[in-house]
């Protein structure tokens, strides 16, 4: 498999440099290196990592907490760079991505590859020496999961790529939690599961109303491969599956009524918005208002849910709100 993967990368690079894209002889701008790290995606990574860090029992020195978040952000950035190095040829074929530093020829592929590998390696090293090697191992797993398992292996092969890819976005709160506690318990695994189950309805709602040219470059996205009806049904299915996972931190006694009530209300709202999306058929001239609303709400859902978790755990640690549903929970 590895030989096939490497051959693919070399082929795509030679196509890039010799035929498809005229690569610059100038040194790339530092801003292009920064752009390669996908800073917008990183804001969600940093937010959920901070939530995991703050919600974890115990405390961490602010300098170490900052270092842990920095290492997670660097790891996410490094894997995003490797992702774009690998997909340069695919990106060149899509309107949304054709102006990225690699497909536009502003940077040499080998520079991007080295930068991605360096950033990823340094992030794991810093996490290991400053925080702990369990958190570092999880960060390495997240990088490999996104850059190799998702990007190189599964994304071009299965329409379930978004479901599997959701796993890479689910690592940050888990790593943030482990940075404080040094162990994996039920609560950080649930935080992982929440983002994992949330990603398909979030992304597919977007895929329904955003015209994409994934089909043109041979990436099997769900609405293209399985059709719109099947995608809608799966949005509803994942929304139903997400609800018990989102409420579970309260049910296992990991949080108090505060998070419990917020998670129940958010789950009901998510389902109420996903139901029409999951059951309706697109009209001839459709504004896709329900799909757009569901997509916007899914972002608010995640931010509010994680903010409620942090508020709940911080207030409970100060003794300002009561214990979880069951005292002596397993979290």
């Amino acid at each position: 498999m590895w030989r096939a993967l490497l051959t693919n990368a070399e082929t795509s690079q030679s196509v890039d440099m010799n035929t498809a894209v005229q690569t610059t002889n100038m040194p790339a701008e530092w801003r292009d290196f920064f752009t390669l790290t996908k800073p917008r995606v990183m804001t969600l990574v940093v937010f959920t990592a901070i939530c995991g860090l703050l919600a974890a029992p115990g405390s961490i020195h602010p300098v170490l907490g900052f270092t842990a978040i920095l290492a997670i952000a660097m790891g996410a950035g490094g894997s995003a760079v490797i992702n774009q190095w690998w997909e340069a040829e695919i990106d060149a074929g899509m309107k949304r991505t054709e102006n990225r530093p690699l497909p536009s020829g502003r940077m040499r592929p080998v520079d991007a590859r080295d930068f991605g590998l360096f950033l990823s390696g340094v992030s794991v090293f810093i996490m290991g020496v400053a925080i702990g090697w369990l958190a570092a191992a999880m960060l390495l797993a997240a990088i490999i999961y996104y850059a190799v398992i998702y990007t190189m292996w599964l994304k071009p092969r299965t329409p379930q790529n978004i479901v599997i890819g959701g796993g890479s976005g689910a690592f940050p709160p888990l790593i943030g939690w482990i940075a404080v506690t040094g162990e994996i318990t039920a609560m950080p695994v649930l935080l992982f599961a929440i983002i994992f189950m949330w990603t398909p309805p979030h992304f597919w709602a977007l895929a329904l109303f955003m015209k994409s040219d994934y089909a043109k470059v041979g990436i099997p996205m769900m609405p293209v491969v399985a059709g719109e009806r099947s995608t809608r049904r799966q949005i509803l299915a994942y929304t139903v599956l997400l609800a018990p996972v989102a409420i579970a931190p309260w049910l296992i006694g990991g949080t108090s009524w505060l998070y419990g009530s917020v998670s129940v209300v958010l789950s009901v709202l998510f389902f109420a918005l996903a139901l029409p999306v999951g059951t309706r058929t697109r009209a001839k001239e459709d504004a896709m208002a329900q799909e757009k609303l569901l997509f916007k709400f899914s972002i608010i859902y995640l931010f509010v849910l994680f903010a409620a978790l942090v508020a709940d755990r911080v207030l409970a640690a100060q003794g300002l709100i009561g214990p979880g549903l069951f005292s002596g929970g397993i979290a």
Partner: protein
Amino acid sequence: MTPEEEAEFKRRQKSRNLVVGGTLLFFAVLFYAITLVRMGD
């Protein structure tokens, strides 16, 4: 390389050097702080 291209080459090189230098300085300070915190544990 034309004089304009050479000037642009040098400008890019200089701005990259500044960013790399700043990043290295930041990490030197960060590792100093981490060491102090770790020694205090």
